[in-house]
Structure formats: structure tokens, C-alpha cells
């Protein structure tokens, strides 16, 4: 390897779904490729690759980010949560349960990214207005549902969140 390549590849560490991860990889490697290929977590999907569909949505320090746009160095030392890390140990996350009960999915390919965005929204705003829901999900495309089932799932999750002690 020449000097430029050694400079390009560096140690990278990150907390992924609660677990410390350390890898050696190119600093500009796309986070989506790290997640799907290096870590084998294929719940995060590849669809448009330019941040226009949200299928690759993950949480970095709790904020939703398109993994296809983020590079390794931008995530180094931070906390990354993918769809695989949304559920609790034994139980589904309330947002996941709401999607199941309302049928907020059809083919399911947009669903991981959608659920990540919904979780981020409700973590920040447990009782959002309709406009806030729309804004929060404006970057998540769904081709199957027409968003009807998704909105029903979000409202159920909000209601259940409000009624929990």
C-alpha cells in the first residue's frame, strides 16, 4: 500500500446498538456500507443512495441521519443505532408494535428507515402536531402504502405514549 492509502485508512470506533465496535477502514467509507457489509446489519436498506428516500435512516447520537450520506469519519466516536437496535432486549419498541398492529407497512423495505425516523420524532416530541409528523417523515419515501397505514401507526404510537404513566 502506498502512503496515500495508509493515510486514507484509519482506526474507526463507534458504539453500534450499544456495543463498542473497532474497525480499520477508509475514513471516507460510506456509513451504509460499513453497516451492511462490515457489520453485516442488513436491516438498514440501500435504495436511492443520495439521501432522497430514507430507506437507510439510522440514528447518530439520537438524531436521524441518512447512512448513505454519512462517511466513516463523521460517525467516529459517536453512538449509532440501527433498526436492529431499536427494540428492547425482550420486547419490541412501542413504535414497532404500533406498526404491526396498524399494518403500517406492505413490502417492508422502507419500514426500518421509517421506524427509525418515527422513533427519533417521538423521542424528541412525544405529542407532535400533524405538521410536525409530516415534517419529520418528509424524507422517508414509501411506494406501497400511500402513507395511510404509516400515519395510523404513528398516531397509535403517540396515543399509547400519552397514556403510559
Amino acid at each position, binding site marked *: 500500500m502506498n502512503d496515500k492509502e495508509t493515510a486514507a485508512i484509519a482506526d474507526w470506533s463507534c458504539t453500534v446498538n450499544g456495543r463498542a465496535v473497532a474497525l480499520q477502514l477508509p475514513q471516507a467509507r460510506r456509513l451504509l456500507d460499513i453497516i451492511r457489509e462490515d457489520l453485516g446489519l*442488513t*436491516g438498514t436498506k440501500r*435504495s436511492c443512495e443520495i439521501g*432522497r428516500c430514507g430507506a437507510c435512516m439510522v440514528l447518530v447520537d439520537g438524531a436521524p441521519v441518512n447512512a448513505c450520506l454519512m462517511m466513516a469519519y463523521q460517525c467516529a466516536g459517536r453512538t449509532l443505532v440501527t433498526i436492529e437496535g431499536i427494540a428492547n432486549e425482550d420486547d419490541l419498541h412501542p413504535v414497532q408494535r404500533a406498526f404491526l398492529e*396498524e399494518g403500517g*407497512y406492505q*413490502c417492508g*423495505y422502507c419500514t426500518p428507515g421509517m421506524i427509525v425516523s418515527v422513533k427519533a420524532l417521538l423521542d424528541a416530541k412525544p405529542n407532535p402536531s400533524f405538521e410536525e409528523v409530516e415534517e419529520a417523515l418528509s424524507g422517508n419515501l414509501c*411506494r406501497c402504502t400511500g402513507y395511510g397505514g404509516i*400515519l395510523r401507526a404513528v398516531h397509535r404510537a403517540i396515543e399509547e405514549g400519552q397514556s403510559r404513566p
Partner: protein
Amino acid sequence: MLLNRRNSGERWRVRPDGPGKVTGALAYLTDMDVPGALYALVLRSPHPHARIVSIHTEAARSLPGVAAVLTHADVPGLNRFGIARQDQPVFCEDRTRYVGDAVAAVAAETLALAGSALDLIEVEYEPLPIVGDPEQALLPEAPLLHPEGNILHSKSYRSGDAEAIFGQCAHVVEETYVTTRQMHAYMETEGGLFVPGPDGSLTVYAPTQHGFMDRLQLSRILAMPERRIRIVSSPIGGSFGGKDELNVQPYGSLLAMVTGRPVKIHNSRRESVRSGLKRHPMTIRMKTGTDESGRILAHRVRIVADTGPYATLGAEVLNFATEHVVSAYRFGSVDVESISVFTNNGMSGEFRGFGGNQAIFALEGQMDRLAEAVGMDPWEFRRLNMKAADEPGPFGQTIARTDGLAKVWAAAADSALWKERVHLDISENSDIISTSSATFDPKRGGGDLPLWKRTGIGAALVMHGAGLGYGIPDPSGGRLALRKDGKIEASFGFEECGQGLIATLEQMLVERFGFAAEDLRIVIGDSDAVPDSGSSTASRATSMMWKSLSLLQTPFTEKLLTEAANCCGLPVQRLRLGPGGIWDRESGERAIGYPALAERLAEPIVCEASTSYPVPDTDIVGAHYLYSYAAVVVKVEIDDLTGRIRVLRQFHAVAAGPVMNPQGYLGQIEGGSSMALGFALLEESTMAQGQYIANNFDTYLIPTIADLSGPVEVLAIEDLPDGDAYGPRGVGEIGSVGLAAAIASAVRNAAGIFIHRLPIDPALLQEVMPIGQWAVMSDER
């Protein structure tokens, strides 16, 4: 009753494929990878039309890490594919005909190496004149894209002498309708994993709507017997008709067989846009005439479809459009001629609605124009002309009799939305109308709306055929078994692309037989494990599952109960199927569990059923027998400043027989209507000189949540005539067919402008200076 969770009660279930989807645990076929897999890329033509002078792959092949580079010389069998007609090259030999045409394919240790290898393949092209639209392709001097010419298919249907009748008509309306090249835009692109076996067999894990057809096509290409090829085709991240035809499977399969190693392909979005199918753009010219009272006497239609460079299902789509431009109404004399034309544009092919979307947009547009010419309410005009339940189908064929059309018509007429329109029309007409915009316009502004927004309400009526139609083999079937492990196994050769097939099948089994969901194992999407049920297309799967289960019910039940009676020493009449096992009607207790019963059997109990989709008694190829019906009412808002349209509210009435799965049915109508909204307002896969201008989701715009946040109500009308033996009709497509026409109707209502082209150009609706004469504050100081 409106379809929703509350009204559905216990019939609203959690889908069996749900947990995997909401946790990300479900692996799609494009997620699959194995150690030692190679990564493949396809080299496609940069030119829409070119002669190939030479191909040199030596430099690519000698790059370290490259395992294989293939061209047409490396195809052991047939270098062609196509569901109906095999005319599309796997690898082009001497000519490329569109920018997605494949010239070579590479497999390498990494994707990056494959990309580098692709760049090292030297292809010398001699660009040829580009045939950029069907009109051009039909000129005598046009380059011939195929030896037999530039026409893929033509179809005509005539009844009576329409030309002669026009002279007698009191009102005649002529219009040319143009529809857009829409893209499926499934969120999962094409791809898969191709794994050669040590015995020379091949397993293909690649999404497709018809695994058995893929197997047949690949066997021809690979020159391998079908039994050596296994296709795993599910789950699919969206298809909508776009993954029925072959796409990357030939390349993955060939590379796997040549290298002896697993090969992975996963199209980038740009690759998918470039090479994938699109909806046929159509130009539909209609001339329709009525008598004084508004009865249609003559109807003349000319359809020109741009099918791109190769056949795929272009002829079948054309047949469907031809039938549907004469659907739903009595037309008197009819003269339809349609033609599907080869061009160097992108490939057009199967797409949800299958030519019905284009046909109904045109036909419903004619109905609105005629109603106005006659001076009638547009919905009354439809009632006057729509066919009765016992009348023949579009091609004069006998069709399954239902009241569906009248019932959806009535449901729309009764809807709150349509009543709102009728009320507004009355109040508008009761004021003095002048041309000045300073007069009261009940549709303009009002309430919270600023002055420059107008609303309107419109409706459309839809009749949509299901099944492949007369003349195309349409077999189906399924299998039920009690397996050694005690599971009731239902096997169908269908695929789950999100439509809820698995959930609907589970629901049918639970409701028809009394099983519990936990008793079941549903097997689909594996050609080694399932019978051939035909393609998951044409809104046929629900009907065919229902039919197969109705054929299987008696024999399967009898076998289970007989064996159980033997095991338990109880008379068979006392026994019935139930959750967990077989139950004793008298004691009210379970007599024997399915696992226990299975253990006692020497052989598993297996029942198979064969059937086929009903066809009419006719000789017109493509004619259908079973139809679904729908009426759509929509309220839109137009912003005069920008000419842009918002859909505010939708009402759908759908008559398709009994609802098998309420959540699935609702989802299909909601989802279909969102595709129709895109078709009407947003989506155009623009091409210029055979090149795609919009090649990703930043420029190809599909609806976001903001575009679809208005309420959508779906009323399912389940009634069927006594004695109807066909059960549920499919609803996979019909939701996508009517909304565009309804939006056009609403635009006419709001803005007085007739739309004849999709997607709707906002410039047509934009006002030059829309603030008008409304003085905000005169100059008093």
C-alpha cells in the same frame, strides 16, 4: 361499511411477515451474501441506438481480482429473453437499441474491482440515428429497429360503422390524451444472489413475480434443464409489475455457472432507472358522439403506445388498453385501432393497471367533455350510458354478471364529497356570473383559504379486468399438506411483494378451515417446494388462492378427519377441524392435535388442486371475464400562483366481491391511489433523444407523506349475485386506475380547464396575476 381497523374487528390481523419487517430481521434477497461471493456489474450501452463494431475484454479479464468477463459469445443457450416473445438479447451481439441494453458483465472479488473492470472493457460503437418517438418510428424513412419493422403489435376492434354514425350525432367530442412514462420506483432495486451447486445445479435467490417463468427462461439461456435450477423469489421489496420480466438474473446466473462461485448483484438506483421497465406512454385519440339526450352512439379510438426496443409484455398491455377504452359504457358503434411501436426509448412493460390507467384516463375524460356538451351533470351522464349487469363485456363477450358498476356509481353519488360538489354547483349557478373575477366564486378562497386558492371536486368510474385474458394460458393451483412435524402446510407458487399475499392466505386458511395461525406453515416463492400457481400478477392471486382452497377443502378435510377418526376411535361425523387439532363436536374437546396426528401417519397427507383463471367464451385475444369496479371521488385545491394541485380528500368505492383480508384490501386501494396521484401530478421519466433525464429520486418525484396527508376513505362493496361461483376478485390494481381521471375532473370543476395530458402541467393552471381586482387598500392618502 368503510374499511378500517375498527370496522374489521377480529378480521384485522397482524401480518405473519410483520415482525421480520418491523425489526429489520427479514432478509430480502438483495440482502443475502455468502463468504466467497463475487460481485457483479453489467456494462450497458451508452447509446440509445448503435452498431457494435468490436468488443475487447482482454484488459478487463487480466485485472487481478476479476473472475470472469462475459459477452454474447459466452451464452451457452439462447441469447434472448422475454416472457411472451424472446427478442431481448442477454448480451447484444451487433447492435444496441436502448441505454439499458447489456453488452458485457463482470464478476470480481469486490464491487470496486468490478467497477474498474467494467471501465477496462473496450467497446467500439457506431452510433445510429435515434428513433425517439412512435410517430417518428412509423415514418417510411425511419430506421428499422427489427427486421420485421417497427410495429410490435396492433389490435383492432370494430362493431357497427362508427364513421357513418358520427354524422347523425347531436354532440361530438374529439380529444387527444397523452399519458406519462411512469416508473415503478420500488424501494428495493433488482438484484440477488446466484449460487452454483457442486452437482452443476444453480440456485437463484432473486426477486421476481413468477419464479417458474424465470426458471424456464434461464433454462433456455443456460442450456440447463429446468429441474437443475431452483428459483427462490420472495420476499420482494416492491414490484408493481416491474419484476415479472427477467432483469439481472441472466447475468448473475451465467457468471455463477462460469466461475463456479456465488455471485451477488444489487442494482444501484441509477442502474435500475436505466435498464428497468416503465409504464407505456400512450397517445389516445378519441372521438365520441351522442344523440340529443346524451346517449353515446359512436366511439372511435386510436391508441399509439411507445413500447421501447423489445417486446416483453407490450402486446398484452396494448390488448388490455384496447379492451378498456370500450369498457363500462354502451358505445353504440365502435371503431378501435391500436398499435404498439418500437423506439429507442427505455423499455416499457408490465405496470400495475396494465394499460387500464391510460385507457380509463382517456375514456373518463371523454365522459366529462360529453356531459358538458350535452348539458348534463357528469355523473348522471355516466349513469345514462353505463352498462347494466347483464350486458356483455367490452368486446361483446359474456362476462361474469355483477351489479358492481351500478353499486359503485351509487356509492359515489351518495358520498359526502360528491354531494358537496352538487351543492356548490347549485349555489354557483344561482348567482349572476360575469367574467370579472371580482364576483362571488364559491370555489375561490373562503374560510381559511387565501384568494388565490380554488377547490374542485371530480369523479371517475372504473371497470378493470383481472386475469391474463382469453388466449393466454392462465393455470393455477395449490397444495395443502399435514407434514411430519405436525404443521398444516399450504404451498402456492405465488410471491409476496408487499401486497399481503401471505397474510391473505393465512386469513383464508384460518377462516375457511378453522386452523389457528400457529398451526400453519405457508410456503411460497421457492420453485423446488411449491406448485406452479402462475404469476403473481393481473390481480389474480387472491382469486386463485380462494378457488384452490375451495377445491381443496373437502378432500383435505375428509382425509384429516378420516385419519383422526381412525386414530381416536371416534365416528368421523363427530369430528371437525379446529385450532390446534381435530375437535369432537359432542364433547367439545380436542380429540387429537395436528402434531400427534402427523406422528401416527405413515405418509403425510397431501392434497393438490389445479385450476385456471376463468376466461370468456370468445375468440378475441385478451378479453376478460372477471372484472372489478370502482368509483373515485376526489377534492383538489389549486394554487393559482403556481398552478400546483393538492389532493385534499378521496373517496373510493370498490366492488370486487368479498373482502378476504381487510387490512390488505385497504392497503391496496390506498397504495394504488398514491401511485395514481403520482401518475397524475408528479411523475415523468422524461427522456430526450433516448436518454433518461431524471435518473434518481431527486428528479423523479414520487409522492411523499406531505402529498398524501388528506383523508382517504375506502368503501368495499362485497355483494355478488346469488350463484356467483368466482369468489373474491382481485384489488391489486384497481386502486391505481381511476384517481388520475378523477383529479382531471376535479380540475375542470375548480378551474374550468380540461386536462388531456399527464402529468398535469402546472403552467396550464397558473394565473398571470392572480391577485385580481381585490383591492386591499385603495390609495386614499
